[in-house]
Every structure is written in C-alpha cells, then in structure tokens.
C-alpha cells in the first residue's frame, strides 16, 4: 500500500513512517503543502495522512486541490493535526476529509489503526 504523509514536524512524521513501514507499507513524506500536491499526483497513494498547519500551502488548500483532482478525489484523506477547534474539524470534513484526529489526544498506535482502517475502507 502506498501512503503519503504530509507533515512538517519531522519527528512526528518519522514515528508514523516507522510504524507503517513495519507492516510493509510504502511511505512517502511531504513536508509542505506544495510538495504534498506534487507527491500526491506522482504517487497516487492509497491513503493520505494530512496535517493542516503547513508551510507554503495550508492543509485546507491541499485538501481542496486533492478533491478537485479527478485522479485523486477518491483517495481517502485522514487529517492528523493538532488543530482541535470545532470550526477546523467542520471545515476539513466539509472539504472531504475521511477522518479527523487531534494528534495529542491519541496514542500513536490508535492513529496507525485509524489509517489502516481508512486503507481498508478505500478498497
């Protein structure tokens, strides 16, 4: 399975990458919004793990672009962000996010589990 992780905090991206690679998935990390879109178009992943506060292009814009892309619009996007405001969650869900998780609220294993669930659902 191909997974794109869009995350500017390298230490956090590494944790997710390590956990997912352990179960045999291909993981690509994009550390800003622009790279995220380029990588998504190149890779056409099975699932995208998306942070919201990103350099160059915000996660919301990335989400909007992805959902407007014929080839990518069906790829499930799991938002994993520390933005926890109701309005942020609502906005992301409206833009087409599959799930939304506040990082600090969940143990890493739970996040990994949710990503896997999204992968299964995307089949």
């Amino acid at each position, binding site marked *: 399975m191909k997974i794109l992780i869009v995350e500017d905090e390298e230490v956090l991206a590494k944790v997710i990458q390590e956990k997912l690679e352990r179960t045999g998935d291909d993981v690509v990390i994009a550390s800003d919004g622009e790279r995220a879109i380029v990588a998504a178009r190149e890779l056409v992943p099975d699932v995208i793990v998306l942070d919201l506060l990103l350099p160059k292009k915000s996660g919301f814009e990335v989400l909007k672009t992805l959902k407007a892309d014929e080839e990518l619009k069906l790829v499930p996007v799991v938002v994993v962000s520390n933005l926890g*405001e109701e309005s942020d969650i609502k906005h992301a869900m409206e833009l087409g996010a599959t799930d939304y998780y506040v990082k600090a609220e969940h143990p890493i294993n739970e996040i990994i589990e949710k990503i896997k669930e999204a992968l299964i659902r995307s089949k």
Partner: protein
Amino acid sequence: MTFSFRRKQGLPEGSFTEDKEFKLLFDSLLDGLAFADVETKRFLAVNEAFSQMLGYSEAELRSMGVTDIHPSDALPHVLEEFEKQARREIRIARDIPVLRKDGRIFYADINSSLIVLGGKQYLLGTFRDVTERKESEEAVRRSEERLELEISRLPIGHVVWDKDFKVVTWNAAAEKIFGFSFGEMKGKHPYGTIVPTAVQPQVEIVWHKLLQGDESTANSLNENITKDGRTILCDWTNTPLRDKDGMVIGAMSTVEDVTQKVKAEEALRKSAEELKKFKMAVDSASDLIMLTDPAGKIIFVNKNAEHFTGFPREEIIGKTPALWGGQMSEDFYQKMWATIHAKRVFEGQIVNRRKDGGRYDAELHISPILGPDGEVAYFLGVEQDITKLKEVDQAKSEFISLASHQLRTPITTMSWYLEMLLEGDAGALSKKQEDYVEKLYAAARQMNDILKSFLYVLRLETGDMKVHPVKMDLAKLGQETLEEFAVSIRNKQIDVSESCSGLSPFSIDPDIAKIILQNLISNAIKYTPEKGSVHISCAHAAAGSSVGGREVSEESMVITVQDSGIGIPQKDQEKIFTRFFRADNAKTADPDGNGLGLYIVNKMTALMKGSVWFESEEGKGTTFYLALPLNQHKESVA
C-alpha cells in the same frame, strides 16, 4: 298738643315763669327728655324727641312709667340704676336698653338730674340714643373676637416675652407646636423647656440683640424640642417691645414649625440632585441609551448617542432608531418587534450605520417599560459598542488556536516516543527503565489534560463553544468513557457498574457530554479508595419529580455518577464548582488536580441548558446528578 305741666299734674304754681318758653325749650332739645316721679316711677312729662324715640304718643307716655319702656329682663338693672340716680350716686346710666312701641330695642345713655319740688323727688332724664355707638363697639368687639379666634387657629405661634425672657403670652398655636400649655409656660424661660442645650448659645445671641433693640436677627431658624421630646425645626420672627419712652421691655415672637416643610424641601432637593446625577451617569455612560414611545419614536437619548451614530441629539429626538439602523435582515427586525411587543426583553447583536456611512457592531438590549395599566409605556434601548470586544474575542480565539497547536506538538512528540519506548520499539527496557518511562508518559498525558482544560475554559468563556446535539446511545457513551479509565479501575480494583442500556436514543452533543462524563467519572475513580465502587445510571425524570433531593423542573434525562469515595466536606460543598477550587481532602488524595474539572462540568451543563448538583457525605461517597432537559434537545435536532 299742649304742655300742661303744672295744671294737670298739679305742680305748684310759679315753678316755671313762662310755660310757653319752657315748652319751646323742652321740645326743641334733640335729646329725649322724660320727667318721672321717683316714688311712682310714672312719667309726668316727656318731650317730642322722647316720644319719637319710643314710638309712643306723648299722651300714651304720660300714662306710662319707667317700668313700661325697658325689656323685662333688663328691668332689675334699669331700676337699680334709677335708684342710684335718685340717690345721686350716679348721674349717667349707660347703655340702657329701651323698648320701643314696635318692639325694637335701642340703647340709651340716661343722664338724669334729681329735682325736688314740694318735698317730692323727680328725676329729669335725658335719653341719648347710643345704639349706633353701641353697635359699632359691638362690631369692633366681635371682629376682635373673630381675629383672636383666627389667630388661635393659625399654625403660627405667638409668644410675648418679658425682659427676663419669660413667657407672658403663649397662644393656642404655640401650645400645639410645642405641646406645652400656656399654664405650663407662663413665667417660664425657654431654656430648659423648648430650647435644647446645644442651641442655647445661638438663641442667647438673638435675645441679647433684641434687648438692645437690634432687629438684625429678627429671623432665626433653629431647632427646638417639644414637651414629648421631639426635635423640631422652627422659624422664629422676633421684634423688640418698647414702652412709651422707647425702652425695650420684652419681645414678641411668631413661630412656625417648619420641620415637615424643610424635610419636603430637602427631599425635593435630593431627588432633583439624584435626577441630575442619574442624567450625568446616563450621559457619561459609554453605551448608547435611548427611551422611545411604544411606536419606537425616540423621546430621549444620552450624549453618547452622538458618538455612536454621528447624528446630533436634536436630529435623533422624534425619529426612530431606523435613522441609523436598517442594516439587518427583515427577519431580525420582525423578531425584535415581536419580542418586545410581547413585553419581553430583546437581546441581540446588531450592525448599524453611522451618519457618515461607517458601520459598527453593537450588542442591542431592549426592555419594555410597562405603565400602570400593564401595557408598554416606553422601550428602553441600550446599545453597547462591541467592535473592540469582537477584536478581543478574535485575539483570544487566535491565542487558543496557537496554544493548541504550539503546545500540543511537543506533547505529542513526547507521548508518541515514550509509547514507542514502552512498546520496545527501541529494544527491551529493564524493569526500572520501564517504570521511569511510564512516569514520564503519565506526566506528558497530564500536561495534555491541563492544556485541554485551559482550552475548554477559554472557549467556554469566550463563547466559542457551541452545542450540536445528535441522537445517540447514552449507554455506549458511558461504556466508552469508562473504557478510557480501564487501567485505573483495574489497578484500584474498583467495582464499576453501568445501567444506561435500554433507553431510546437521546439528543445530546456527544463531545460536550463526553467531556462532562470524563470529568465526573475521572473524579469518581480518583477519589474512591481501592476496592470501592462507582456506579453510573441513566433515567428519565418527569417534570416535577424529585431526584437527588431536588425537583426536576422539566422532563429530563438524568445521568447519575455515584461513588463510595472520600466525599466532599460540608464546608467545601458550596464552592465545589468554583474555578480552581479544590476541597482539602481532594488535595491530599490527589495533589496534581488543577481545580478546573467541576468548573468545566458546570459551565458545559449550563451550555446544554441542563443542571448539575450532588449529594455527598465526607468519608462515605458522592453522587453527582446531571439533568438534561429532553425538549430542548429534541428541538435542537429538529
């Protein structure tokens, strides 16, 4: 008619040289003359004036006597006077009532001369009609009496003092004012009676000036005391009294009790002052304050209205607030009018337009003021400029957002890496290492909890938190929440039970409900000793039913969290929902708590229009009750 004095009455000859001359003289006198026998009291002769005075003919009078021409009740006095005259003790009998033939009475002064003729005594009486004088004297007397009566009825006291400052006269009004009768005050000094000790020096000065004839202190306002001990305020007017040589022999005073008058004036002055203060306060208020008639026409606006709207006050008066309004939807204004016409208070945020076209945000508050008939008499409108407030709110929201992201990222990093260490991702840990890492992980979670609490409080206080009810299974919510505490429950061997199954889905905001339950369950577990019990139950409660010592006002879902824990000490129960408050025994049991949990529970419950309360006994346990009204939550979904 002829005068046949001597002949007919047998008077001795030669007494009067010329009969005719005598008659002429006798008749020409304007005063009435009557010649009477002292012994028989019969008239021997009368003149024409006398005849006219009495209305009898001379002939008739010659057959009458003294006793026939006076009212019978006055007769004893008349005869006494007649005798006195006969004995020459008096010459004039004054004010003698005389009865005329026609029954009318007139008064006469009778001046008589005793004449002795032939050893017999006669009285020659000159009658002078004094009715007129008597009547005018009577009129004066009556008017004096009336005046006296009027004076006694006046509320103005009248007092005359001798030169030793002792009471000489003291009228009825003075009696009424001071309660002392004239008898009680006669010859008394005002000191020790009506002048309080404290006022004596002031009175002494006035009195000395009066004695010196100085009238500069003619008017004085001072306190007096009454017989029954009341202190009254009196207005005195004083004049020195002088003898014929100009020496001061005393003083005359008029006095009026002005206590009520002064009080009324004071009250009036105070209320005028209050009104002025009120107007100043209204004018200096930072809000726009207006008063309108029931149709919305503006009767009054404060000064700040000019600052808000840009319109001068005189342009606003008489217009409606539409002058600077009309920026909201038709719907908004309809709802506003419907509310205030229903005599309810309207509150809402409004955008208005200044005279220069600029816009401002305001919090609008309209209260109907009802008249005595219960109908709307006025509307009181207050606009609070919230442009600044909105900026502050914006800043707060930005801070919340920043804090949540910036602080959560390092917490997430710590937590995730510690989790990996614990899972052996970096190799197996020794027992001691595992113990240390677990402690670090717990601290990271605690940091996250504190941050979360702070964020909840900030969001609750900025009004950022909104309720979004959805239909959900309470039993599932309860079980999920309990699941989060599985480790603590297992470690403390707490007996947990839950009875929320079988209820139909209930509309509730799942996130807020979860936070409330997390806090209540977390407390129950935290403050319950090992092997204690925690029980969670849910039940419908009808309006008016009694739950946990309280009456539920409307049909509600009541969630109960009961524990066998340390309880809340009686003295702390009142403060338990206060921000940062922690009961003493709770501080001992868990030193790390932040005192925000129950504050958040209370605020969030209020946000859901519910109520939360508890029953607790120290050392035995606590039961929290959370009542959420069914109707309100049904409506929210629809």
